[in-house]
């Protein structure tokens, strides 16, 4: 997926009802039943996960939501970080783009 197209695409969690997680001190530990893997999400990845738990969202939406959560300005580097997190979520089967 090229970076030009990723910003406007809508992302959602895959089968969120089947996921099991804990949030401790802003960090999420997520058990993914389809792979049997456990994912340790830092505060930024945890923030993306937290928003996607409530609704599908675009990279731009997620970037704004994360900036709100952290009470920080929306920056290009935050947007890039969100894109990288979503790619990783896609790789491990946690999230996908809505078609």
């Amino acid at each position, binding site marked *: 997926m090229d970076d030009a197209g990723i910003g406007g695409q809508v992302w959602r969690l895959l089968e969120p009802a089947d996921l*099991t997680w*804990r949030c*401790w*001190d802003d*960090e999420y*530990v997520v*058990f993914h*039943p389809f792979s*049997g893997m*456990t994912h*340790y999400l830092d505060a930024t990845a945890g923030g993306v996960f937290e928003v996607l738990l409530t609704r599908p969202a675009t990279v731009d939406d997620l970037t704004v939501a994360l900036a709100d959560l952290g009470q920080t300005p929306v920056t290009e580097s935050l947007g890039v970080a969100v894109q990288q997190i979503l790619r990783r979520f896609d790789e491990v089967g946690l999230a996908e783009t809505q078609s």
Partner: protein
Amino acid sequence: MPPASASDGALGAQFHTSGVALHIAGIRVNIRTDVPHLPEQIQYMYSGHRFETAAGIDNFQIYLSYTNKLRRFVKRQTQVYVDGTTHFIPAPERLSYISLESALNWCISQTLSNVVLHAAVVERDGVAVVLPAPSASGKSTLCAALVLRGWRLLSDELCVIRPQDGRLQPTARPISLKNESIALIQRWAPDSQFSPLFAETSRGTIAFLRPPAASVARAAEPAEPGLIVSPSWRADATPALQSLGKSESFRLLAGNSLNYFATQRLGFETLAGLVDRCASYRLSYATLAEAVETMETLLARTLAARRRDGRAAATA
């Protein structure tokens, strides 16, 4: 090792025929052996445990025998079978007891009805402390030192967590000590009772400390977890107790679990539940005295906090 009594003799003979069942951590293991001296060692080290001679439903069957008939006379080697399959390399006959202990560990770690960690567990005043740590971190030595100061032994090696209520299932088995730790614990508690020394094993010299009778008597009584403390011994360590975040604590437990991946969602929920209900620490120490003192101070603080919480709940 004291001589077996007349009844022990009858029990001992059955180890050589149909076997004797031992109940540990909710599982029944039938133990059968051709090795002449082994029943006496088992009965001595597992004195007070529940042995059964009647046929019943075994979860595992351990059979310890000679590798072949010739080996019975020359450089005797024994092989341990669990349910007819070998999972271990043969060992010299004199190390048969260690082979048995390894096989029992293997059996406990194979069950999927409990979540099993590589960790010692002790308990005092209703607070069970899980001590997860890799080998050579001093986990068993600290565990032995604590139980010889009145803490209840649940296990020096395997923390068995019951998923249905998150409580910890004791095994109250002998404590495995290696090399310098053996003399250290003998000095710590000169009256402590040991197995024979097993020299020249792959891990050096090993001896097993007999579990305290009071702990064995409560082997069917699960304990409420309250603390997770990961010990780390180093001769030049500065004593320190460092608080661990819950995410890091979970990672520590999962990394020390023997069946986390096999137990899947049950494993996740069980470990997360343990982390939820426990405060977690990393303990660095150089001497047993300072480690035991730190553990007792931590326990006192935990009990005081519980009393405060109890009073606050009562007045709310």
